[in-house]
Structures are given as C-alpha cells and as structure tokens.
C-alpha cells in the first residue's frame, strides 16, 4: 500500500537524502528541510522502499505538502 510522506513544517528543501528504489527504515530521513536556520529531517513513518520523490532541492514546501511516496 503506497503511503504519502508529508512535510510537518513549512520550509525549503535543503537536501534530498534518498532516491526512488532506496530501502528506508522507520525514522530514516527521506529529505531534509531547512526552516529558520534549522535543518529538519522529514522521516519515513515506516520501513519500505522509496517510490517517488516529489520535490527538488531549493523548493519551498508548505506544511502538509507531499514530499515523497513510499511503496
């Protein structure tokens, strides 16, 4: 069952730390946002494979935006 990973905060995509096909464990950072001088990882809610990354580095995302999808 695919699962959307949403940003829990408004910020700018600082770093994309995974790519489609990567296996992640629950709690692994899928991307890293930067907001107000802080780097904030957006974590995988469960173990799985990354299906899709929906954002690019430098892009601004709003709280609740989908940033990636797990298989």
């Amino acid at each position, binding site marked *: 069952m695919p699962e959307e990973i949403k940003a829990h905060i408004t*910020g*700018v995509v600082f*770093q994309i730390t995974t790519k489609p096909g990567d296996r992640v464990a629950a709690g692994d950072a899928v991307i890293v946002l*930067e907001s*107000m*001088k*802080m780097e*904030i990882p957006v974590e995988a809610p469960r173990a799985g494979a990354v299906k899709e990354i929906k954002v690019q580095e430098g892009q*601004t995302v709003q709280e609740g935006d989908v940033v990636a999808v797990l298989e």
Partner: protein
Amino acid sequence: MFGTVLVANRGEIARRVFRACRALGLRTLAVYSEADRGALHVRDADAAVEIGGAPARESYLNAERILEAAREAGADAIHPGYGFLSESWRFAEAVQRAGIVFIGPRPDAIRKMGDKIQARRLMSAAGVSVLPGSFDAVADVAGAEAIAREVGYPIILKAAAGGGGIGMARVDKPGDLGAAFAAANRRAQAAFGTGELYVERYLERPRHVEVQVFGDDAGTVVHMHERECSIQRRHQKLVEESPAPGLPAATKTGLTAAAVAGARAIGYTNAGTMEFLVDESGGFYFLEMNARLQVEHPVTEEVTGLDLVVAQLRAAAGEPLPWPQSEIVQRRAAIECRVYAEDPSKGFLPSPGTVQRLELPSGDGIRIESGVEAGSTVSVHYDPLLLKLIAYGATRAKAIERLADALDRCTIEGVRTTLPFLRRVVASAEFRQGRVHTQMLEQGAFNA
C-alpha cells in the same frame, strides 16, 4: 564620527543599532530582502535599499550587494549586527578596502577567533584555561581516538569552523567514535565548507558563563562583567542574566581576568564576548569568543547602565573607551528571555506564519527589543527570533517578579512561540534558586 551608518541586518538588532545611531545624530540606512519589504526595520531607517531575494545568500549574506548599497547611498560605516556576515573576516576586510568603517573588531581578530582550534591555541598561550583536548585538527578517527584516550571519555567532537552547535557530537565510548566522527565531519563540511574537527573533554552539567569585553584602538581592554546563559536548546540560548547567580567570587574574578587577558592577547577592539564553561567545582574553561555584539547585550546594558551599541559606534570612529574599568559596575540584576517563533511542545520546531496579534507589556524595569508587529510575516528564511523581553531590578528577586508578570502579559497569536516554555522556566524552583546547567532541557527540565 560617521555621517551615515548602514546596518547589514534585519529584525530587532537592526532596529537596536538604528536607535543608537539616532542617539548620536547619525543618518541610518537599512538594507532588506524581497521578503522584508514591509518589515519594521525598513521603516525605522532614514533610507533603505533592497538588496536581493528572500534567501539570505541572495541578500543579507550578499557582501557585494551590501557594499554596492553602501556606496550608492553614501554610507561611511557598516554595522553587521549578529549572525549573517558579522563574523566573516572577509566581509570586514572588504568593507575596509571599500573605504568604509566596519563597526566591530579588526578582520584579523575575527579570523583568529573564527578558527576555533587556533582560538584554543591562542587563549591557552595567553594563560586562559581551555578544556583538555586537541590543539590541531584531528586528521582521522585514529587521531581522534588517540586524543580521546589521553583526555578520557566522554569527549565532544567539534567543527574547527564551528559555532551555534553545528557539527558537534558527544562520544561516550571508543566504539562510538567512528560513526560520530564521520557524521560530524559530514555536517561540518556541509555547513562550513571544511570538515576539520577537534576533540575536547565533554563536561557533564556545566554552566555557560560568558564575559563581555570591550577594547579600543589604543589597546585598552575592559570587561563588563559576566552573563549566565545556561538555559539553551540545541546549544542556543533562551534565557540570559547578570549577575550570574551563585557564582563563587573566586570564579568570577578568574573569569573576568581571563577574558581581559585573552582579548588583550589578540589586540581585540570593539565589543566581544568570551564564552566559558564552568564546572561544578567552580573551575572554568574557555569555550569560544564571539567577535561581535551578542544577542543578549541588553542584559549587560541594564546591569551597568551603559550603552554598548553607542560605545561600538564611538570606538569604531577611533574614540577612546568612554569608561574606565572602575566605573563599570553591576548596579542591579537583569534577565533576558528570547521569544522565538518555535513550538516548545514539539521540540522547538520552527513555526513560520503571520503574527496576527501582538500585545506587549511595558512598565518599570521592562525593556523590549522587538523586530515584529501585528501583521509581520515570520519567514522560513531567517532566524525565528521575534523579540527579546528584558526585566531588571535592584535585586534578582525583583527582576524575576517583573519578568514573570511581563511574560504573563505578553500575547502573541498567529505563530507558536517559546512564551509558554519561558513562563515555566521563570516559575521553576531550579531557575529561582539559580541551579542551572546547559543540559537541563535535554534532561526534560521545564517540560509541561
């Protein structure tokens, strides 16, 4: 003295510097990013120049553009505030080369203190005690291991170009060193462009106590007493006060003497802060020097009755220090609380948005330094400091009483803030008794 002063900053600190300029009858020039078109600091200045896009690297970190703005508008001095370009020796040097006065220390002093390993070496040579550890960058895990064995675990890995807690990692045992070294190295490389690390012994439950120093072109250096800044999250301060409660007299004397000796050894001019860790037995160790005006400078101003920013302007204009050491006295107690747009119930996660409502207290013994008003946007691009609330009184108890009342009378809506957390700190027995250390937050003190 100068004609026009450009402030290469935003928010409350830009406004604070403008106020000092006005006190001296100087013309003020703001610079601002696209995101800050409607910001308070822009309206505060006599003139303002837009310098670029919202991301700091396009605007407040864009040294070339800032110098261009200074030339266009005829500014003859630049105050960097804190953060952004304030500790860039290259910027300070470029300002001077452009024939403009940099309001701060000489580029050479900024450079020496910016390299944290060199700072350790210089301070140690000046007789200032530093934590046991390395005096050179450690090349690899084996190098770190050798030093760690010498000083004993736990140790802390730090970035040579560091500051603000970035690229720091505590290591409790040899088996953890490899992974920690790789992670700290990567973080330092990403943040500072150099992955160089050094090792220090890790202190359990230290206090963070710092000393304000001030030097002039003639080589005179004075101290302006200490500030206790132990209440921190992510190695960033939330509450600061002076005098430091319960600091043993011998420690206080040692700290201030060491701070002056250290600053003198590097020919320090203008305002700066020597930061120390104080252990449970009153021993103290040099941490780093901040070669700029500190966020918490109002604490020292309220305690001594002296204006640090006016003094910065005068010293940068080549005037001698306005006060001898004997006239710099702690006359009362002052405490500052930093109100950030962060959610303390979610691990101090930033809370960008629009300030919908803002009600601030006023009255005896209350000072507020604010960068926002109702309607202000709190952008993801900058530090989330909204305002600083400073309370002072004849005694620490009086200052606390005023602070508690002032915090209760603050209302900020639209963004989450650190206010609920600050109220809990000020109500706590630990804070009231002055029993504080830098790891309290991580250990869950002040939780709701």
